[in-house]
């Protein structure tokens, strides 16, 4: 309950905030594609820096961002990495192409330099992705999000779903809290005092009124929209898609450049002449890379092989 939601309903004062919805959605889409396309630290770090600059330029309230980063992000990654260490310590070999063991616990459990490199690069990739989401969420109001998506070619009915969802989130969050409180007063136990089975059962008692209250509004909202001509034409205009600022053409041009570079990178380095492994690593020269089949490391495959072998 302590996590605050990042929703920016009113446009902020900085250059990033003032861009049009289309520019922001376009930038975000290309940025996500660029981050997804590569595992190369030499490209991921610049991408991360661009997003951090964007965030800093908006002079946000850092507290919720830091809290989110610390709690939701680091714990998820940390738990994943610890799990990874126990399940597949050889991940360095498959993804980086070499193995320099620095700490051997047993035959199956060891720590290699490449394992650490792998989790480091992976962390940078996820962080870049996280930063791009935060930058987008901070800069874009839900209405700009919806109108920008429509400008990008998405059907306007889907875009209305996005903006209407944002419109109803605060109300539903309120209803949820009120309903939960009233159920607690009636004696419904939801904390760890009750067993997991009991808690699941008790959740039904909150969800049913919440569902009825939330979906009970469908008719009224739909009437209000129909009465004002929603769905009259195949297209619609958007109040939220305001006129371009000085910076819009600049950012759009840079986004197009980023898109071109991403496509070039994918075609040149991932299709025509792919690097033998996913992760470039400074101390593993290309000619020394050992290639392994990632599928072979799956424990299901290992089990099958072992069954066959024995």
């Amino acid at each position, binding site marked *: 309950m302590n996590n605050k*939601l*990042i929703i920016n309903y009113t446009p902020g004062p900085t250059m990033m905030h003032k861009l049009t919805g289309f520019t922001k959605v376009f930038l975000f889409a290309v940025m*996500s594609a660029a981050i*997804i396309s590569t*595992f190369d630290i030499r490209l991921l770090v610049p991408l991360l820096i661009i997003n951090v600059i964007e965030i800093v330029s908006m002079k946000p309230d850092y507290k*919720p961002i830091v809290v*989110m980063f610390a709690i*939701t*992000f680091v714990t998820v990654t940390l*738990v*994943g990495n610890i*799990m*990874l260490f126990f*399940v597949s310590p050889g*991940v360095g070999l*498959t*993804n980086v192409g070499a193995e320099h063991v620095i700490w051997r616990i047993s035959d199956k459990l060891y720590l290699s330099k490449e394992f650490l490199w792998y989790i480091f690069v992976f962390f940078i*990739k*996820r962080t870049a992705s*996280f930063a791009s*989401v935060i930058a987008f*969420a901070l800069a874009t109001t839900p209405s700009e999000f919806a109108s920008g998506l429509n400008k990008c070619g998405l059907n306007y*009915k889907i875009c*209305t*779903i*996005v903006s*209407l*969802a944002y*419109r*109803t*989130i605060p109300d*539903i*969050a309120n209803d*949820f*809290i009120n309903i939960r409180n009233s159920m607690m007063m009636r004696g419904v136990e*939801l904390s*760890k005092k009750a067993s*997991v*089975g009991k*808690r*699941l*059962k008790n*959740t*039904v008692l909150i*969800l*049913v009124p919440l*569902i009825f209250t*939330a*979906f009970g*509004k*469908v008719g009224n909202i*739909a009437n209000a*929209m*129909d009465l004002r001509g*929603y769905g009259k034409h195949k297209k619609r205009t958007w109040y939220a898609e305001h006129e371009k600022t000085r910076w819009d053409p600049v950012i759009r041009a840079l986004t197009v450049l980023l898109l071109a570079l991403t496509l070039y990178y994918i075609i040149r380095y991932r299709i025509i002449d792919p690097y033998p492994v996913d992760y470039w690593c400074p101390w593993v020269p290309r000619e020394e890379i050992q290639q392994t089949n*990632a599928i072979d*490391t*799956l*424990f*299901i495959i290992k089990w099958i092989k072992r069954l066959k072998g024995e």
Partner: protein
Amino acid sequence: MSNKNVGKSLVGVWNTKTIVAVAIGAALFGVLMNYGGIPVFTNTSLTTAMIVPVVVGAMYGALPAAVAAGVGNVIADLIGGWGLWFDWSIGNLCAACFVGLGAYMLMNRFSTKNVVIYIVLCVLGNGLAFGVVTPILTAVFYGSELNVTFIQAIYGSLSNILVEVVVGLPVLYLLSKRTAARTNLEEE
């Protein structure tokens, strides 16, 4: 089911009401994802957000359920600061399609046969989504180690199936009871 009904149960009827309902479903998904966890162990919780495709599916069909879960998942990630996880959002969308279909059929007639079909569709949908779709996307998008992804997928599927069956069935039962038309009520 006639052909028309099959179409309706899969695609739904996309009028303004459906649009609004899907939007509300997506919002509910966002709220439940961020507030509606049931604590199980420290740092682990079952998310009740998976009830959304069940409910939207029951009332409007499989595709609306999938869109509500897909859009809802993206919004939940954006507002909760989780970072976008397309691999899981698309997985959720696929699972929601199956779950929504099962719920729609169950809503038509709450029979033992349909309950079984619903449970089978939940297992099938989650298995397919998180056992095949998400791991492939994870490998392509993020290059994660697949063993870990599978472990997370198995946990995710099991907790989703648990919520969809243990919470979803009673909710569906009450929903079908409470929305059914009544006649012949007499005071006693």
